[in-house]
């Protein structure tokens, strides 16, 4: 507020001096005060608007239309959303339950795993800690396309697949299993693969957060009679690094929903075999790029964005506020 009164004063002074209602000079004042800030922001803001704001806005607008990419969009009100809830059998029977199952295991599971691993690593000396952190992080820096090479041969359906060959020699199975084509295994494999690559920057942030906590806090607690590691985690470690915990949580949530394409990558088809690995992201692609029902696909996108926002809010409730 202080700056605005100063600005008003300056405008008043200018008017008094020139006797002219100083719109031009008010603009110049504004430019002198704030212009350079906006100049620094401009390139990023422009890209941010073009590639994030406008697509989200367009998704919201398109979600109220029927649009087949040939004729111009036609306004249909809430029809897409109503259809999603009432008529989309695939969505209700497969996509939504799959997405929830996948998200609940990969999200909180991957997050808890990342925290526990970070907590363990923080209690090792520097060199081994760095080596382990590098190993655990390495899947996150590997391109998804490179990983497809690995998983496909590891889980290959014939007897030359590593898993099949391994289980055959152990005698656990008697004939090769079509891992990636069988509805009953696909989801499990998707979850394992995603968990495997879930030690991303959220994990690094939590590790750094744990290392930043002042050792005196632990010493003080030990003097006060705290002797269990579990108590230490819940009463010192986590409360002292709430901001990093929240950052990690948001990264975990986004990563979980972003990872949705994995089922299609592994099985090599959209829809996935009997919709076993069909997640909301694949459903969007199915309607948008395969059936050209762009308006309907946009409605699903909006639902997905709202889901991410909802879970992020939930995480903010848990870790936000006190610092």
């Amino acid at each position: 507020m202080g700056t605005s009164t100063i600005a008003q004063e300056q405008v008043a002074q200018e008017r008094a001096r020139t006797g002219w209602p100083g719109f031009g000079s008010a603009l110049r004042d504004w430019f002198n005060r704030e212009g350079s800030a906006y100049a620094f922001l401009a390139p990023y803001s422009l890209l941010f608007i073009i590639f994030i704001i406008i697509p989200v806005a367009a998704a919201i607008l398109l979600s109220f239309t029927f649009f087949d990419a040939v004729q111009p969009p036609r306004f249909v009100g809430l029809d897409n959303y109503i259809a999603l809830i009432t008529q989309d059998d695939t969505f209700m029977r497969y996509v939504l339950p799959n997405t929830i199952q996948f998200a609940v295991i990969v999200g909180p599971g991957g997050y808890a795993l990342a925290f526990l691993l970070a907590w363990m690593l923080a209690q090792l000396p520097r060199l081994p800690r760095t080596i382990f952190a590098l190993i655990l992080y390495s899947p996150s820096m590997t391109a998804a396309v490179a990983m497809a090479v690995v998983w496909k041969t590891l889980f290959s359906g014939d007897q030359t697949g590593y898993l099949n060959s391994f289980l055959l020699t152990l005698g656990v199975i008697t004939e090769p299993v079509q891992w990636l084509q069988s509805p009953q295994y696909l989801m499990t494999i998707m979850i394992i693969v995603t968990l495997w690559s879930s030690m991303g920057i959220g994990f690094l942030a939590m590790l750094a957060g744990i290392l930043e906590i002042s050792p005196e806090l632990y010493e003080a607690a030990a003097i006060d009679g705290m002797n269990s590691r579990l108590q230490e985690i819940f009463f010192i470690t986590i409360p002292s690094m709430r901001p990093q915990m929240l950052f990690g949580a948001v990264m975990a949530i986004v990563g979980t929903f972003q990872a949705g394409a994995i089922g299609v990558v592994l099985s090599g088809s959209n829809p996935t075999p009997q919709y076993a690995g069909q997640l909301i992201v694949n459903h969007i692609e199915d309607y948008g790029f395969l059936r050209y029902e762009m308006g309907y696909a946009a409605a699903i996108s909006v639902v997905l964005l709202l889901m991410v926002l909802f879970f992020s809010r939930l995480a903010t409730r848990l870790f936000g506020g006190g610092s």
Partner: protein
Amino acid sequence: MIARRREWWSQYTGLRNRGMNPSGFHVSQIKFYVILIPLSALMLLPIVYIISSAFKPPDELFAFPPRLLVTNPTLKNFTDLFSLLSTSGVPISRYLFNSILITAITVAASVFISSAAAYALSKKKFRLKQALFAINTIALMFVPIAVTIPRFLIIESLGLLDNFWVHILPVLALPVGVFLLKQFIDGIPDDVIEAAQIDGASDLRIYWRIILPMITPALATIAILTFQAAWNNAEISTLYINTESQRTLAFYLSTLTSTTTVNAVAGQGIAAAAALIMFVPNLLIFIILQRQVMSTMAHSGLK
């Protein structure tokens, strides 16, 4: 003698090396090694597989039962990869060149664009500051895959389809980069900047001579994140590029793997060699910059 031995032992059992960020080995750490070593081995398995397959001769690739480790390493897969033309006649060196050029431009541009925005959001005073930072923070929760279709329509209407810049521009809108940089710049005391202002330094000079040199760890982190986003990106080539010679190595790798349902084993060695070429730069850059990344991550908190 016995006393000295007890002393030696107490170094590893006493209190000094217990707890967080210890400076040396302690018996209490054994339990963590017991958990972490097998787990890391499991995490490394796919990468060991890539490295090993990339050097396997054909008879070992086809061997039954398959073996994880290579016994007679050869460079044949790499020479095959480089003599191979894609189905539309583009040599791999072209994809590699595209990837290197795109990644270099993207990383350089991202470092400057993100840090300029972060500097304004952290140190400049203007009315929309809080609001703009809040929008960027919400955008951390943005899932690009959800808006693939509207993004496609926008890129199409901007005439960026099949344009070289479409590889670069979307990747530069990286909210997490601006977020991390802003948090890091918050740690620079205002006094430093005020002192420079009194000396008559312009904003550009402050940004260039004071801010940038003080935030090199955060810049390194942004460089890594952008590097990964650009170097590993196959999606842009698939969706927005039609000219084969304008596509990236990551895209080429995805074509090698997407057809492997037919010859899962035949293309395996070549695909693994390409995957290794994709992976090694990621690894090297992270190893070189890991210290900077960890110091940036200490500022990553979301409040």
